[in-house]
């Protein structure tokens, strides 16, 4: 029996895809059913927006019970602005809105994925850390009291995210990560249909 791809990840970099795959596999999704499309340059909002719309179109044509999961750093532009940019792309192509319930899930790490990685890694280690969603930890370095995270921390952070209660996340959980937890829950329901 041949492998069937159920989820397409659209990510700015390998770290995002490792993080998202860590979460999905911890949630019981077969890792072999996940394909990652990673921007060749390692960053690039436009690339993610274009590919998210492209894969959403493919989803509409080919796939019941399959999904597209995109990660797009907010990078100080405002999460609502970023989301609207992607929504406009979908609208241009006559596709529905961003909707985790329909398998089109967009996560918006704010300020960027590193914010989530630092918070989750510290939480997982049992030494909670305060992070804010304005500081660019990728450029500024780790929050006070935290070692610098590396590539090897992305997947465990995603796995740990799955252990959190989406309805009652721990104190200090970054706002957009709380939102992401809710969206991922809906997304998992959609792709398990």
């Amino acid at each position, binding site marked *: 029996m041949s492998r069937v791809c159920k989820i397409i990840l659209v990510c700015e970099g390998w770290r995002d895809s490792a993080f998202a795959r860590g979460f999905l596999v911890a949630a019981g999704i077969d890792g072999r059913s996940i394909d990652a499309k990673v921007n*060749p*340059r390692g960053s690039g909002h436009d690339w993610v927006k274009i590919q998210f719309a492209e894969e959403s179109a493919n989803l509409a044509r080919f796939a019941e019970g399959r999904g597209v999961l995109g990660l797009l750093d907010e990078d100080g532009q405002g999460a609502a602005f970023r989301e609207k940019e992607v929504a406009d792309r979908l609208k241009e192509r006559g596709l529905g809105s961003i909707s985790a319930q329909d398998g089109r899930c967009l996560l918006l790490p704010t300020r960027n994925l590193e914010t989530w990685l630092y918070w989750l890694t510290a939480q997982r280690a049992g030494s909670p850390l305060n992070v804010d969603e304005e500081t660019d930890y990728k450029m500024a370095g780790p929050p006070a009291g935290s070692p610098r995270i590396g590539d090897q921390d992305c997947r465990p952070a995603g796995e740990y995210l799955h252990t959190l209660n989406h309805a009652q996340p721990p104190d200090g959980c970054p706002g957009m990560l709380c939102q992401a937890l809710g969206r991922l829950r809906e997304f998992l329901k959609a792709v398990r249909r």
Partner: protein
Amino acid sequence: MLTRFYADNYRCLSNFTLPLEPLSVLLGANGSGKSTVLFLIAKLRDFILGRGDSLELFPPETLTRWDKRIEQTFELGLRLEQGEYIYRLRVRHEAPERALNKVIEETLNLNGQPLFAANDQVIHLYKDSHKEGGQMLPDWHVSGISRINERRDNLKLMAFRRAIEGTLVLALNPALVSAISAAKQPVTIPMPDCSDFADWLKHISTAESLATQEAEQNLAKGGLPGFRVFQTDPSGDAGILQCIFQPRLKFRLDELSSGQIALVILETVVAVAGERSGILILDEPGNFLGLSEIQPLLARLQDAALEGRFQVLLTAHHPIAVDFLAAGHGSWLEREPSGPARVQPIRVAESMEGDKAGLRVSDLIARGWLSGLGVAGQKAASENEVQASTRQPDAQPRP
């Protein structure tokens, strides 16, 4: 992890330096030197471990055809927890017409300090403290490092040798893979074509049993649905490697399809490389695999490499592999006809972003538009906004 590979006057490799990362992907046209690099690493491994001598591993036919010099030079950089090792080997072909050569230099340094130094007259041994630890007479054709026994004061040298021993270099050819294991001695390193896979699996089933179990589990939940375990059935003095499927179906390894054999071998080497924290070198791993199996394999290799579980060096022609890995981890090899191989990292230009995003890297390669050296390549770079970097290959002549 291997950090650097250097070869001079070996086939198409002339004063050729290749920096290596946790994940490195070699791309280039047929005959550009990709496989030559991979197989030369295997030869250096075999030489260092005493699995072959200079006469058989570096025969005169391996001298660069257009080069009149009679010396070949090879270097490997290796980073371990002990520090940065540099291994250097020079082979002199005194009488190429009689296939005679000899090792004129073999050295191993750690962080710039000597651990081993040999010329064609004497071998100087060093302790872990880098103080002289005696002398030996060299064998002109055999690695001196391979002849040294482990002692309490040469653990750094032994760490190097073990890391080299943990290097797997494979260019699969399922048609040659035999289910029969008949080797009298344990096969600790498989042949590059894995024709002796059954013998090797027999060895690692006892020496690295956890890796074998992991391979079996991954095969069962991956590309070989219904697969359960490997089993070697005795047959006279030999054994026959069987793959046991549910419900109690048994197939000899060589009864599986080419793609299935490739999957069996790849899952096994990935598990073994993980167990060893070793170095995995694969020539065209996507060959023989069904399209749907390629991305999961590459994703696992990429994860393993970037998370530091083991190092991966591979060549690729397959579009899925090229598009998935090239821009972040690719190096482009290129040759003029009858000229030396040159290498440059593949870099996607800034203007590749957004609505200007153009052809995929695999399309550029397929059309011959990705090139860092030729005129056509430069034109293509400007038109298609994907280019190899302009870094020049190592042009300094080596001593």
